[in-house]
């Protein structure tokens, strides 16, 4: 039987196991473990008094905490998994990549990365049902990595819910000895080139890319889809080195807003540190 520790940023999976498989879950101190024929999974929820061990956080360089960090008994990360019950359609897809993509693109990564969600969902901005597959980022990049970016069909979510699939994935990761999948350069280049065609606020000028999307809404609140899109483009370019620099073309007001945002905001800092500002 293989043992693993799952550090959880969400209690949904533990609750799901308690309610659907009550015989397989056991209390161990303030933690809970799931024991089945092949695995003994200890679920822990880090908090202020019991934070995520430093050894683990040092292995994860991301812009948010993944929902499930699967580790061996010595706190070596086996996999990092993010799940969501809502299909990331429309603008939501790149926003959901904020946590996952920095990990997935890291070529020195020693562990698996997975994102799991429904394929079809309602796009609130258009009040229609859409598929994740309609996104340029799925078509040019994510579809190449079906073991990492798992989008479930409606019929896969009738008897089982997302948490059931996440548990199966955790068990698969704990039991398998396969090496983590690292993205191929050709797919990164394809995605970056497609972004220039699909993102209307992005254009290629010589050896640079110019991004002119509005970083803030009229009420000065952060435009998360725009931030996420720019962050994705920066990360793709960092991985490929295709363009010399990314120029952020912005108004004086938005430039000041960007500078005044919380200094602890990792995403804003990443954008500030990896673009050249041009006030227009």
């Amino acid at each position, binding site marked *: 039987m293989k043992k693993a520790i799952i550090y959880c940023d969400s209690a949904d999976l533990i609750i799901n196991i*308690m309610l659907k498989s009550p015989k397989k879950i056991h209390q161990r101190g303030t933690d809970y473990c799931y024991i089945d024929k092949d695995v003994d999974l200890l679920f822990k929820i880090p908090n202020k008094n019991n934070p995520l061990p430093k050894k683990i956080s040092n292995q994860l360089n991301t812009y948010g905490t993944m929902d499930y960090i699967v580790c061996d008994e010595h706190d070596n990360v086996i996999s990092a998994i993010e799940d969501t019950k809502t299909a990331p359609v429309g603008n939501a897809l790149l926003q959901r990549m904020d946590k996952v993509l920095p990990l997935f693109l890291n070529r020195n990564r020693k562990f698996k990365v997975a994102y799991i969600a429904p394929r079809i969902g309602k796009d609130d901005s258009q009040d229609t049902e859409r598929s994740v597959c309609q996104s340029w980022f799925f078509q040019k990049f994510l579809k190449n990595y079906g073991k990492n970016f798992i989008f479930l069909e409606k019929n896969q979510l009738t008897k089982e819910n997302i948490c059931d699939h996440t548990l199966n994935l955790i068990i698969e990761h704990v039991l398998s000895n396969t090496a983590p999948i690292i993205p191929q350069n050709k797919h990164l280049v394809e995605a970056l080139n497609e972004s220039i065609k699909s993102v209307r606020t992005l254009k290629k000028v010589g050896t640079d890319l110019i991004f002119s999307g509005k970083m803030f809404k009229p009420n000065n609140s952060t435009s998360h889809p725009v931030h996420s899109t720019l962050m994705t483009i920066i990360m793709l370019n960092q991985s490929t080195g295709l363009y010399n620099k990314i120029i952020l073309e912005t108004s004086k007001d938005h430039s000041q807003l960007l500078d005044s945002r919380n200094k602890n905001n990792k995403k804003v800092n990443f954008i500030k540190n990896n673009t050249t500002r041009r006030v227009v």
Partner: protein
Amino acid sequence: MMTETEVILKFIYDARYFINENLDLDKVRIEVPCGSWVGSKRRSIGDIDLGVFPPIEAKGTFIDSLKDFESSEKNLQVMNYLYATTQDKLSKEFDYWSNKNLDNVIVYLSDVNKYKLLKHNIEDFDFLTSLLGGNVEIFRK
């Protein structure tokens, strides 16, 4: 001291067989604040909604429950509270809840692994007893 997350998980763990065997899981809604979760609640009342029983608001401690109860801004419809405490504090906490307009105040005694009702609605007692596998008693001073 237990956190709100620990209290909810312990309660659901203790109720898991009853819920699994008797309730429609599609109607069970449980909201657990944990990890880096900082968002607001999706629902206006109760962390534990079993579908067949009025929602239960869970807190880590008596003080947190008291603050929630006395807040005029939220949870006005909550009639059931759950939190963790210890045997030595029961009497004082019982006095606080005794004249409050609530249906049930369920406390988990972390020092003896038992549940007590500091306030209860007689019509709910059988359900709560079944839910917690018999490990619940009415507190009497």
